[in-house]
């Protein structure tokens, strides 16, 4: 009897924590899913009273949804590609080469984190304003780089540093050139973490709201910006829910895969902790 009691007391904190977390974190998101498939759900019933796909058809028939989807997709592809071209060679250099001012330059990327993001966007926006970049696609692309730079430098630097240097030296000893060594030895080892960084960049850009909202308005509408207007004009609750589910499920699946690579260390390391 007392053994059972002791076990219960021992497991009580865990159970309590789980319950509170599920209530605070999972329930609101679960509600979005219910709303997406609810045709009728009136207060105070706990669950929808009529289920269906009616709002999915209405949502998928809207031209602005598809337009925003195209804009977001194109934006994410361009920003991810640009970030990779700009950052990956630099990350390799930071991890492997010696040059003057190296650690200072690496730390300079942290200055991006050291300012409140929206204030930084405003400072950039005032310059874009005089350059005529506010309300243009180019402007939105450039402002996204503020977010992606740190991520695309910091995670790949760690990845390249973790590559076993003896394997590279072995490859060179048997006559492989520097490019061959990089492609067949270095890249496969650093690959998973770099893939995770690319994925995070893509998804992060796809969902970035504040820079796109500030710089893109009123001409460029990405999916999150469209979502803001749906929330503000709240005519039909289900529109927002359907859009959320539609938007979020693919990225969630992708990120579940990334989780294998992205352990707590990598994420904490991403902010320099």
């Amino acid at each position: 009897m007392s053994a059972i009691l002791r076990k219960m007391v021992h497991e009580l904190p865990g159970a309590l924590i789980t319950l509170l977390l599920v209530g605070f974190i999972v329930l609101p998101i679960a509600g979005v899913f219910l709303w997406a498939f609810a045709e009728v759900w009136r207060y105070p019933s706990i669950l929808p009273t009529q289920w269906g796909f009616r709002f999915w058809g209405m949502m998928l028939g809207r031209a602005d949804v598809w337009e925003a989807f195209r804009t977001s997709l194109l934006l994410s592809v361009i920003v991810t590609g640009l970030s990779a071209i700009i950052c990956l060679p630099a990350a390799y250099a930071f991890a492997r080469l010696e040059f003057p001012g190296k650690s200072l330059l690496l730390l300079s990327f942290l200055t991006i984190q050291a300012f409140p993001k929206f204030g930084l966007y405003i400072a950039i926006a005032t310059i874009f304003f005089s350059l005529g970049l506010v309300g243009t696609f180019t402007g939105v692309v450039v402002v996204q780089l503020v977010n992606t730079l740190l991520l695309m430098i910091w995670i790949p630097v760690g990845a390249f540093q973790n590559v076993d240097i003896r394997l590279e030296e072995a490859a060179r000893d048997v006559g492989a050139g520097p490019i061959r060594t990089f492609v067949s030895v270095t890249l496969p080892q650093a690959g998973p973490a770099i893939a995770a960084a690319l994925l995070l960049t893509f998804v992060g850009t796809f969902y970035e709201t504040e820079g796109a909202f500030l710089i893109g308005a009123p001409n460029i509408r990405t999916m999150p910006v469209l979502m803001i207007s749906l929330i503000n004009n709240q005519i039909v609750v289900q529109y927002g829910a359907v859009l959320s589910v539609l938007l979020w499920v693919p990225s969630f699946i992708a990120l579940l895969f990334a989780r294998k690579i992205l352990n707590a260390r990598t994420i904490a390391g991403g902010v320099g902790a």
Partner: protein
Amino acid sequence: MTSLSAPLGRQKRARRFPVGLLLVAAPVILVVALVIYPILSSLSTTLNVDVAGAGRFSLANYARFFSDDQSLRNLRFTAWFTTTTVALLFLVCLPLALYLRFSFGRLPAFVQAIATFPLFVPGIIVAYALIRFIGPNGTLQSLLDAAGLHGYRTPYLTTWGPVIGLLWEGIPLTLLVLVSGLSQVPQAAIDAARDVGAGPLRILVFIILPLIRNSIIVALSLEFLRIFGAFTQPYLLGPASPESMGVYMQRTFGDLQDPVQAATQAMITFLCCSVAGVIYVRTIIANRRAGR
């Protein structure tokens, strides 16, 4: 380091021609162009007034901000919800992190999975989900009613709205940084303290907290910066007045078409966050020197 194990010939070549510097040039130039230059430019713009076609140093823009009631109210509100949310994050995440560090089995793994889940939910969807959940006639109210608890007052569109949204978003990163810090606390130190009769509270205060000091500082200063400049959650969950500095800046820039005053607000935001920013960067430099 690398150069020690490299053959002498290669090392010499690298010294003659710093390829590395060339490779890192592009992102460094971007940081200058997108962070340092805009900030310096905004600073100089806001510190100048146009007098007969010529710029002259003046604090007029700042004086205008600090003599305006609405501006001050917004600044105070932002400072309030920032400190409140950061404090709540610490109070929620420290016990969670301790639980994850000192227990084993499936339940902690499940708890960690749920607690890091918000990392994979975009802020805009969080805001929408919370509106449906905590909003008037939302799921929470229905659940409370079903449990016989009436008289629910929604925090949606009140000053607590942003706190809830920002707390939701902030849990994973704070938790992961704390867990990463706790994983470096040696079990031997805890066992030794326990052997001499220290209770859990004493172990926490005198052994664990000093050892994870840097992790706590990094997590809290980062969250301070993130929350002080927040836009999406205060914009969608908060009251129309007072506004967060993020919302205020956006409205000044976008709706009022006053870039100079918006830049002034941004500079004041930076000033309020400068301590947190400096602490963050310094702690990370110290961590790296310590040879993490």
